[in-house]
């Protein structure tokens, strides 16, 4: 039924709400009760002066009677109907439902919206639970210790003839395991307490820090080199809701402040004018580490460049996204990213033209370098940190030179079926 045809239904609902009897309203309007009845049952079109009179008598704007419920409400109801697999003819009656029962319709639409939000939250948390190695390790520790305690305690309780030697060993085991359980439980509770704070914002520690940096456009010009005013900046950041996020953000700010001193804005602008977005050339020209030049370039407001930093385990500790180069939030990334190749050759600056597979198949120049970050000890490989600057390549530039290296974001969402780095099937190409 057309929406305009439902004005009669709305008149009836409004009349009943305001306590008018049909005969009384008809008398006020100067029409017969039977004619009003036909209008209210959508059997007569209504408009002009009679519509104005009815709306005045019912104390509403005429548009309330003619336009009915908001389009968004109707759209939400249709979406809810589609989600429930409702038949098309029934779903088409969303308009009528919203017109006749606006309160119920609004409640249903609100419930549908809430379900959508909750489902997204569940997906996010489920993703985090599945991939968070800290949580998995904590739970494993608690359950393994509980298993040990249970097995040992059962032996002690169920075997009265246990020798003194065994009894002593098992008592000692119980003592060490109970201490371990106490420690691991405390660690788990501490982790979950932090997660509670995260759940309130829906973000992980790293995501909170990224949101904080993005909210400031990655610009923190007033930072003191010694970090004296850093606490004020962090305390005033609404994006940072947990102590963990503030700690990580402080580390990031310290590095930003140090980079700004090593390569001040004026020198950076001059270098960019001469060398564009080539961090190796800029590092050489300005006598700064390549990674420093990469970070300074990536955080320039005028340049849309991406940056990732990875520790030696391959975990991404910093992410600044750039359009077309997908950086997964959870789980492992594509092993073919140059940032991982750099880890194998600390100190060597790499420049690799890559093509990020996906909808856009965008081309980028990736500059990557790994630096030693930990103390150096004899016969021990030092800790390294690899930095990769992601520079979009215009299509005209991409047409020349060697073919770009094909990359994906991560195996699960990468369409490249025959890839030497594939760890697991793709949900895109293999229908998982």
């Amino acid at each position, binding site marked *: 039924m057309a929406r305009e045809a439902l004005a009669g239904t709305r008149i009836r609902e409004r009349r009943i709400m305001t306590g008018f009897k049909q005969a009384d309203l008809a008398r006020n309007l100067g029409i017969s009760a039977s004619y009003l009845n036909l209008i209210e049952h959508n059997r007569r079109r209504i408009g002009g002066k009679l519509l104005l009179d009815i709306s005045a008598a019912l104390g509403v704007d005429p548009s309330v009677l003619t336009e009915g419920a908001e389009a968004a409400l109707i759209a939400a109801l249709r979406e809810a109907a589609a989600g429930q697999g409702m038949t098309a003819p029934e779903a088409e009656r969303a308009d009528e439902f919203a017109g006749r029962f606006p309160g119920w319709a609004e409640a249903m639409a609100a419930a549908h919206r809430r379900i959508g939000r909750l489902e997204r939250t569940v997906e996010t948390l489920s993703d985090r639970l599945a991939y968070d190695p800290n949580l998995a390790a904590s739970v494993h520790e608690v359950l393994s210790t509980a298993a040990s305690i249970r*097995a040992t305690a*059962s032996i002690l309780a169920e075997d009265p003839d246990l020798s003194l030697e065994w009894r002593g060993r098992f008592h000692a*085991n119980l003592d060490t395991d109970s201490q371990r359980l106490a420690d691991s439980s405390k660690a788990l509770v501490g982790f979950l307490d932090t997660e509670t704070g995260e759940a309130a914002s829906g973000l992980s520690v790293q995501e909170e820090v990224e949101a904080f940096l993005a909210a400031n456009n990655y610009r923190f010009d007033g930072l003191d080199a010694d970090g004296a005013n850093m606490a004020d900046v962090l305390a005033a950041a609404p994006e940072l809701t947990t102590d963990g996020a503030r700690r990580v953000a402080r580390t990031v700010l310290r590095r930003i402040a140090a980079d700004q001193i090593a390569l001040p804005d004026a020198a950076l602008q001059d270098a960019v004018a001469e060398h564009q977005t080539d961090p190796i050339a800029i590092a050489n020209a300005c006598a700064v580490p390549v990674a420093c030049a990469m970070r300074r370039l990536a955080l320039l407001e005028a340049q849309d460049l991406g940056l990732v930093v990875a520790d030696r385990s391959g975990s991404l500790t910093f992410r600044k996204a750039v359009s077309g180069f997908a950086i997964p939030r959870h789980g492992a990334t594509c092993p073919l990213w140059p940032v991982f190749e750099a880890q194998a050759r600390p100190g060597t600056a790499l420049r690799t033209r890559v093509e990020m597979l996906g909808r856009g198949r965008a081309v980028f120049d990736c500059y990557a370098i790994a630096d030693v970050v930990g103390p150096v000890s004899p016969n021990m490989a030092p800790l390294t940190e690899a930095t990769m600057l992601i520079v979009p390549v215009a299509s005209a530039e991409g047409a020349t030179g060697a073919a770009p290296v094909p990359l994906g974001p991560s195996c699960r969402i990468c369409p490249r079926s025959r890839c030497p780095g594939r760890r697991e099937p793709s949900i895109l190409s293999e229908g998982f």
Partner: protein
Amino acid sequence: MAKHVLLIEDETNIIEAIRFLLSREGWDVGAHSDGATAVQAVREARPDLLVLDYMLPGKSGMDILKELRADPDFSRMPILMLTARGQSRDRDEAERAGVSRFMTKPFSNTEVLTAVRDLVQLAR
């Protein structure tokens, strides 16, 4: 001659408790704690039954299970997998890989003993 069970587990106190339980039942119990060398340890020990933890240093219990099942010599060996991961997808993956029994931590001693007895009975 006593039946031989090999326990691949990195928790020393769990090893001690299970070793005690099974030894009391007449089993000859060996133990190995490193996932990376576990398959080799199984090949050398050739146990009648393997108790295998899921999370191990060096190599996961799941990878060890798959490697053993791919070897004709161990394709039918009873394997009891112990895990702190109770998710159904882990259980499904283990069953697809050919685990004989899947048990989640914390378990009771009776459960372990019953599972071991059942698996040996079935293997005969």
